[in-house]
């Protein structure tokens, strides 16, 4: 009896394991194949992919079915001898040329229709200026509001006007089933219409160097009211310069993707404990780390490259992108890191 109980327990346990595995394979809110459907493109891509997959599966089952059957039926065995003669059958040859061709033409046609919808940008869109640089995204909204998150309004088409400051990047939002490369030297445009509020992942999907896998951002889809509230808040910078500097550092300007505040070397030097000291230069000698040094390094990064960061070429110039009071705020923030 006890043994039976144990066996039953084991069985239940293993069933649970299988259940958990299935749960892990297919997240509950999403389908087995896809993440959430959060844009108008998503239903089209999903059903079309599933249609192609089922057609493919039918062919696959047919091919593997025949293969396994032939392996069994015509296997080499005592007393059996198959024909050595080469066979040929024109009807079959024509059949398996024409049928796949028809299916391929249909897939091409459907794919092209869907593609043209994705490429045809509606007339009245909410425009976002996207800047990709190693290794952060920045999103520009009206009135000079800049943020490192992409904020959108549900059920309103949005157009991304994208440029890269250095190498190839690619903006990819899986929940929107949308992707477009950002090629330096020209503007790339893409659009999508979110259909569901929430927060989604945005990835860089074109290899861009060291921190490629870290070059992500969040997409926040708001209701109209939420968006307006957010936008109003963003237009008024914090009055405290340290707070303002922190906002610029962490969110708006994306300094944090290259400069840490805990002493770690990411790409550029850390801000921790540097204020007020002397820094060694790549060309030799030292300079005091003061207001003028920070200002010059932000506007013309190559002017006084630090030892260990000889090229400083990874740092783009912020000439024209930072206002004077923003530079002052960043300086105030760096000072505050010293006192902590």
């Amino acid at each position, binding site marked *: 009896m006890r043994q039976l109980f144990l066996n039953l327990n084991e069985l239940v346990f293993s069933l649970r394991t299988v259940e958990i595995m299935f749960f892990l394979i297919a997240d509950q809110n999403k389908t087995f194949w896809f993440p959430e459907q959060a844009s108008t493109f998503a239903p089209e891509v999903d059903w079309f992919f599933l249609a192609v997959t089922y057609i493919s599966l039918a062919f696959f089952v047919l091919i593997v079915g025949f293969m396994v059957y032939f392996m069994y039926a015509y296997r080499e065995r005592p007393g059996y001898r198959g024909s050595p003669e*080469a066979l040929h059958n024109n009807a079959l040859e024509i059949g398996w040329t024409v049928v*796949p061709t028809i299916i391929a033409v249909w897939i091409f046609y459907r794919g092209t229709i869907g593609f043209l919808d994705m490429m045809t940008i509606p007339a009245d869109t909410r425009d976002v200026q996207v800047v990709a640089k190693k290794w952060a995204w920045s999103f520009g909204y009206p009135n000079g509001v800049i943020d490192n998150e992409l904020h959108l309004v549900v059920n309103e088409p949005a157009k991304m006007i994208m440029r890269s400051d250095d190498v190839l990047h690619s903006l990819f939002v899986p929940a929107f089933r949308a992707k477009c490369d950002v090629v*330096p030297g020209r503007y790339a445009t893409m659009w999508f219409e979110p259909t569901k509020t929430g927060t989604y992942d945005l990835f860089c999907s074109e290899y861009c160097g060291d921190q490629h896998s870290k070059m992500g951002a969040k997409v926040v889809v708001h209701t109209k009211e939420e968006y307006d509230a957010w936008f109003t808040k963003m237009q008024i910078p914090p009055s405290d310069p340290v707070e303002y500097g922190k906002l610029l550092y962490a969110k708006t300007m994306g300094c944090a993707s290259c400069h840490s505040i805990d002493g770690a070397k990411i790409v550029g030097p850390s801000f921790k404990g540097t204020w007020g000291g002397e820094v060694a230069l790549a060309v030799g000698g030292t300079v005091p780390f003061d207001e003028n040094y920070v200002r010059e390094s932000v506007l013309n990064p190559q002017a006084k490259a630090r030892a260990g960061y000889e090229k400083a070429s990874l740092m783009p110039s912020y000439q024209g992108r930072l206002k004077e009071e923003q530079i002052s705020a960043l300086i105030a923030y760096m000072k505050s890191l010293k006192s902590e």
Partner: protein
Amino acid sequence: MSAVISKPLVAPVESAKEPGNFLTHTSGFLSWALTLDHKRIGLMYLVGVMSSFLLGGVLALVVRAHLFYADGAFLTLKQYNQIFTLHGAVMVFLFIIPSVPAALGNFLLPIMLGAKDVAFPRLNLSSFYLWVGGAIFFLVAMLTTGLDTGWTFYTPYSLETTGPVVLATMGVFILGFSSIFTGLNFIVTINTMRPPGMTWFRMPLLLWAIYSTSIIQVLATPVLGITMLLLMAERFLGIGIFDPKLNGDPVTYQHFFWFYSHPAVYIMILPAMGIISELMSVHSHKGIFGYRMIAYSSVAIALFGFLVWGHHMFTSGMANVTTIVFSALTFTVSIPSAIKVFNWLFTMYKGTVSLTTPMLYALSFMFLFTIGGLTGLPLGALSIDRHFHDTYFVVAHFHYVMMGGTLVAFLGGIFHWWPKMVGKMYNELGGQISAGIVFVGFNLTFLPQFVLGTRGMPRRYATYVPEFEFLHQLSTYGAFLLGIGLFVALGVLINSLFRGKKAPTNPWGGATLEWVCSSPPPHDNFSKPPVVGDPYDFRGLEYDAREGGYVRRK
């Protein structure tokens, strides 16, 4: 008196009956290093490409082990980028491209033609040394300075990264010449050295495949050479063709690069298809179904393959019309591949199917290549590709084609021709077990990657969001299983060198000319020109237990 004479006469006759083969013909290091014998060159290539494969495979396992955890297991981001670059570059340039044509092709092509050697034996040796030189140059360049551009060298990243892009591209340039020389040599050999009676449509299908491949090698590889030179010129002279800072266009580089590298995909897969044509018919002991369709489809793939490079750039911002045209052309290339699969399948119909090691690899190929081919359909469809481009779906797709296709066919080919190459039979059960482990391990590695792709996991990521961890772990387990399978295969082959039975002339019952030669073949292949018949005429080929192989009865 007669007894006295007859005794010493017997021994020399016996030893003369044991003819020297190409392995024992001469000996010493220089007899190999300076050989003009296509078979020895083929074997040296085989050692070279398999060493490259071992290196590329170990790197793949490092990549998979690192990706076991979402935050990465043990590499820094930069190290990961260098290792996946090295993995891709080694596998593509040093393993897959030369694998079948240079290693098996060199060994088999002249024998299948009933010839003594290729048309230009010295060019053949020089292309081997170009390959060795290029490979060493390339590896030293990559290892000493940590190239991290990915195997594609995309601009402008490759123009500004500190890695030794110029040295690596120089290596690719040299390897390209090796590839061109081999292609040229094979084209001339097939055109001029076929024996009387071997018309185009009496050629073994492997030769059709190698011929098509050679045409691509000769026509497409120079474009890679030009691209690499332009890349060097851009880096040194700043001519302003690819670099946007100098008014160049990075997308131009992509066009140049893929104009070679997409046809190169067919350089990789076509010879593998040729192998499968041989394996399916020989191990079904039955003539190939639809010979002409398979032959024509090889040529069709070679031609269409030149016109589809744009599908690597569907999201890079080409004009809509260009994108749509490339999509249409991409679908055309799927048809000849489908035709091949159906014809191989029906070759088994009413045959006598022996489930030998090579056949198991060939059947694995059928399974895996079908998945690889079918998953190309959604990628060719423009709307779906917006989501799938540069995700793991693409990674899984091309590994199914390149690895499940080319590598598995190559292994099948090695097991098929191994007795011919070294004159030893391997342990059949061991070989079958390796095929089974490779099959299971491969699917466990790459099936989860399709799902990772549809869920939006971008490729070339050293770390990833936690919800992808489970599927990544499945994939890592699979990769290690696959590694075990490959080591079993290697062990079976090496074991056969020491403990294998002597191979008969025709262990599988093949009807092409290499199975007329002894195993291993003599130095000059055929002492008298062979009689050329139908390469797929299996009538009268019967197993002879005394011989341990097949003999043809009239």
